[in-house]
């Protein structure tokens, strides 16, 4: 059973449907006992970092998710859920994240040249860092396949944690990981078969 963590942000319908399409059992929940009992965790999220982090803390889910992840349970953060895994974000002030993946969250505008539209919306190709083994999360997909992005902020200073990037006037962080903790900036649940293959790989971790 995979727990999709519900802490009051965003619509989890598509995410639940995508896992159903690949035959994975999920429960959408904010209940600590279900989260502790699940084999894997998915942290979704849309909206502003500060608001989402506050909601996660309000319910005490920040500590729980962190404990579970540090104990070795596979965790996948998606979009804002990925950004929450970093140390901190500079979206409208400084906000602390969960600190599970080294790095920070900064405006895309700090990196890309003028003339590029923000948010970065649409299908973009994934590139894997050279000279490193491909992350197990991408074992069912190929370099250069496209996934769907919608974001105005992105992971920065990920260093060795970077497992995929996307070119948008600059190399933007598309995915990062440390040990059993994975984060993807794009929406696998909106990325057609490529996205489903990424979720499949997560399910078999």
């Amino acid at each position, binding site marked *: 059973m995979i727990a999709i963590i519900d802490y009051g942000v965003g*619509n989890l*319908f*598509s995410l639940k*449907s*995508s896992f*159903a*399409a690949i035959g994975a059992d999920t429960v959408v929940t904010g209940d600590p006992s279900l989260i502790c009992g699940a084999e894997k965790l998915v942290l979704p999220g*849309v*909206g502003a970092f500060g608001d989402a982090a506050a909601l996660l803390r309000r319910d005490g889910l920040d500590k729980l998710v962190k404990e579970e992840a540090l104990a070795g349970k596979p965790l996948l953060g998606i979009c804002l859920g990925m950004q929450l895994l970093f140390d901190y974000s500079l979206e409208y002030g400084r906000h602390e994240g969960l600190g599970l993946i080294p790095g920070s969250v900064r405006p895309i505008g700090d990196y890309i040249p003028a003339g590029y*539209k*923000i*948010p*970065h*919306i*649409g*299908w*973009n*190709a994934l590139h894997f860092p050279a000279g490193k083994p491909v992350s197990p999360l991408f074992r069912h997909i190929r370099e250069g396949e*496209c996934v*769907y*992005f*919608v974001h105005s902020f992105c992971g920065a200073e990920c260093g060795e944690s970077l497992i995929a990037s996307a*070119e*948008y006037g600059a190399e933007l962080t598309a995915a990062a990981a440390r040990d059993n903790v994975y984060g993807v900036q794009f929406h696998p*649940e*909106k*990325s*057609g*078969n490529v*996205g*489903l293959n990424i979720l499949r790989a997560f399910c078999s971790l």
Partner: protein
Amino acid sequence: MITKRIIPCLDVKDGRVVKGVNFLGLADVSSPVKLAKFYSDCGADELVFYDITASAEGRALFTGILTEVASTIFIPLTVGGGINTVDDFDRVLKCGADKVSVNSGALRDPSLIPAAAKKYGDQCVVLSVDAKRVDGQFRVFAKGGREDTGLDAIQWIKSGVANGAGEIVLNSIDTDGVKNGFDLEMLEAVCDVVDVPVIASGGAGCVDHFKTLFHTLPKVDAGLAASIFHFGEVSIPDLKRELAADGINMRL
């Protein structure tokens, strides 16, 4: 680099796709769920669903169909038609829509755009505009292109984006249905004033029209069409392959 998007548009009335669909090899061409899956499988980058139902029962039926479509396809889904209030946004987003397109509802009440953008984010609000040349001006038309609002389209789009519309669908009434190519002049005028994605609609008749669109106006992000896809005059996989071969960045 981000790819250009190809978007088929389905008009749904009383739970069925209308406006002529003529596919070979698809058992029930009027089933929105089957057609949506067909397009998703053949490489459409996004789908647009328009609810052209007037009655309350029709609307409930549409909501049911939308839920079924959203749980069947895993590409971005934009929903429009009958969106007049923030509650309407809520209704379709809960069914699995990713973006909501407003047209007449925003003309009647321009505060709908900022209210929805504040609640769901700019990326969720698509402003769809039907425009036509009148007295040397691009004029906004309402009620499916039947009523001249007197508004200048460029100004209307500019203010819509300033208020939080995250994407523009520009449908040129002048080129719509003529199949002689997109309205490059009108699209350029819009691209010049906004920095959000612009989706071209109206006038596509063949693959070359998409080539001309993306080569002439690199700022246009997507091409939308209905009947040429529904009637199989242009197949999406062939279109995308030809565009890619012509140097246009596509998701294949």
